[in-house]
């Protein structure tokens, strides 16, 4: 393996200006990420405009910073407020909050930071080794394979979410439909533009993401009864002691591996891995009853695993161009805006960008560790500010931020429109994630499918007879049918205990 491009990537990343961007990214990511109710997805969406104006490499580095900062921001609220920012830090709450109640919140946050750092780093090393190989394999993919892969990606995201699968697929299809708005690249025809010049250019990713993920979250949280939220626990010493690190060492090591492996799986990788790592530690512990009552391993394992998983979910994105979850869809969109098309060609054609992205993750991860421990006190102060005060400030950041991207009020209206759509979707049990992901992939799927049809001379069976696209379509069919089988199977099992029904 040739190391030169990797080292060149580092020299770019280590430029002082880029380090500063990364630092700012981590800081702002944490700052917005600690706002209760705003998970990493919402945070990244809200902050997209600030990465818009700067040059690609710096923008990506800043994004990596925001990504890690936002992840850790969710951890802070899990430990201190018992409010997980997203599903993948739910498990952290059990022991993290228990530790906080014992006055050891600092320990929990410190261990989480160390674990996140180790998990992230292990995962990036794995990513550096695995990604070029996967990309090499995917190099012979043609349009039919891409179409198949895109459809598989959309379907997987829809089927692994925690909501109703049917609704998720409907949302995804609406996303695909929204992606067709604008001028058709093949025929030049204007689709669904209703004579509007703004719509002729197609719908822009940034306002949609900001509305669907950022604003909708804030609107949705307005309905919550705030009175239950307690003020955050006191923070003691943040630096974990040698003894605590010793206790957590094994959990961090195993969590890194579990996270890396499960993170590559599309969909709930991070959530699944945090749960699996926690369960694994609990099972192999000599005194499993300590878990849930403030076991250090109970924080270390899931936090390490979810960060490792969040990082390794970059593999399908960077090598196949398929985002594995909603957060990756945001990163994908952000990279596209910077003129970077993630996919198998990235590593060979733009090695500087590819390694720039990966190396910026190392830096983001290190800065997270360096920043989080001394800064925890500051973020706790932010948590003491009431949500009622933070909400309008965030709204203002979102709306004015959306305006600054292209200096158009039209974009502000788009954000509001999609904010309303996202709010209504949540109200009616539709996940906005699949919609956004499908929107991002929509253009690629359509153009690949149409190119493939041209290649096949209009014969759609060509998709099934080519070995790779055929295999992928078989997987598509499997993913589509599997939930049905599982439901039937579960129904049989549930007949004994009918109260347990959850999903259809």
């Amino acid at each position, binding site marked *: 393996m040739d190391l030169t491009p990797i080292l060149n990537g580092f020299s770019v990343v280590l430029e002082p200006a880029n380090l500063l961007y990364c630092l700012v990214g981590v800081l702002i990511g944490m700052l917005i990420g600690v706002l209760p109710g705003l998970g990493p997805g919402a945070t990244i969406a809200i902050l997209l405009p600030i990465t818009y104006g700067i040059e690609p490499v710096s923008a990506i580095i800043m994004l990596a910073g925001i990504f890690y900062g936002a992840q850790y921001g969710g951890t802070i609220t899990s430990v201190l407020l018992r*409010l997980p920012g997203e599903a993948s830090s*739910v*498990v952290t*709450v*059990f022991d993290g909050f228990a530790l906080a109640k014992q006055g050891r919140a600092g320990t929990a946050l410190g261990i989480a930071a160390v674990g996140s750092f180790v998990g992230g780093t292990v995962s990036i090393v794995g990513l550096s080794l695995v990604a070029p190989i996967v990309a090499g394999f995917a190099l012979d993919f043609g349009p039919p394979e891409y179409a198949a892969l895109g459809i598989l990606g959309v379907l997987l995201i829809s089927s692994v979410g925690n*909501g*109703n699968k*049917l*609704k998720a*697929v*409907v949302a995804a*299809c*609406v996303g*695909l*439909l929204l992606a*067709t708005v604008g001028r058709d690249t*093949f*025929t030049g*025809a204007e*689709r*669904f533009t209703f004579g509007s010049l703004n719509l002729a250019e197609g719908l822009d990713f940034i306002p949609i993401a900001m509305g669907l993920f950022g*604003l909708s979250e804030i*609107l*949705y949280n*307005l*309905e*919550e*009864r705030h009175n*239950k939220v307690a003020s955050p626990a006191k923070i003691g010493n943040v630096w974990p002691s040698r003894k605590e690190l010793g206790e957590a060492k094994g959990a961090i090591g195993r969590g890194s591996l579990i996270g890396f492996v499960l993170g590559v799986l599309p969909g709930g990788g991070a959530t699944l891995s945090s*749960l699996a790592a*926690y*369960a694994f530690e609990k099972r192999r512990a000599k005194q*499993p009853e300590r878990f*849930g009552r403030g076991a250090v391993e109970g924080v270390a394992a899931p936090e390490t695993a979810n960060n490792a998983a969040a990082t390794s979910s970059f593999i399908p994105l960077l090598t196949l161009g398929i985002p594995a979850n909603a957060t990756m869809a945001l990163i994908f969109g952000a990279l596209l805006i910077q003129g970077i098309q993630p996919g198998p060609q990235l590593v060979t054609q733009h090695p500087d960008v590819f390694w720039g992205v990966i190396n910026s993750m190392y830096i983001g991860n290190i800065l997270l560790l360096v920043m989080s421990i001394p800064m925890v006190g500051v973020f706790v102060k932010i948590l003491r500010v*009431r949500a*009622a*005060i933070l*909400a*309008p*400030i965030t*709204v*203002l950041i979102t*709306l*004015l931020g959306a305006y*600054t991207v292209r200096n158009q*009020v039209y974009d*502000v209206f788009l954000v*509001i429109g999609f*904010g*309303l759509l996202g*709010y209504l979707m949540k*109200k*009616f*049990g539709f996940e906005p994630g699949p919609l956004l992901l499908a929107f991002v992939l929509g253009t690629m799927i359509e153009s690949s499918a*149409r190119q493939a*049809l*041209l290649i096949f*001379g*209009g014969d759609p069976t060509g998709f099934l007879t080519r070995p790779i696209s055929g295999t992928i379509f078989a997987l598509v069919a499997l993913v589509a049918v599997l939930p049905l089988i599982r439901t039937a199977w579960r129904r049989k099992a549930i007949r004994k205990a009918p109260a347990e029904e959850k999903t*259809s």
Partner: protein
Amino acid sequence: MSVSDASDPASQADRLQAELDETRPPHAGPISQLAAALVALAVGVAGAAGSYALGLGELTQPGPGLWPFAISVVIVVLSVTLAVTGRSLEDAERFSRSSLLTAGGLVTLVLLAVLLPLIGFEIPSLLLMFVWLRWLGKESWRSSIVVSVCTVAAFYLLFVVLLQIPLPRLI
């Protein structure tokens, strides 16, 4: 992980999630589910009609409407399925009195967007902050005024003075 006793992390996580959901309004009945499915159906039908009008073309020569037409058909099929099978789902939330807060919030957002190009960002932002703080967040008059003035001042400093972003403004 087939053991599902009370201490199983997965069910523990589910319980925590359920507990967090308790701060949400109660779930809505079959009419809301049906309405949601019908809205999706309407989107599908409109999409299908619109893309049919664009021209489907042939498989050898796909027209601009072929792909959106295919998606719209899928939406129609799935939303009909949803309307038939999904009425007993419990994942929709009822609109409650607190939904009025969201509606009020939305009005201020639209107002900001309308006024932004006309009179600049300062006054609409101030208004938005104040409404959200005083009526949506139930802050005191004093803190509402102080916080909204300070925030807008900070935004002015950040966007206009420091970053020199061409935001429409009064001053």
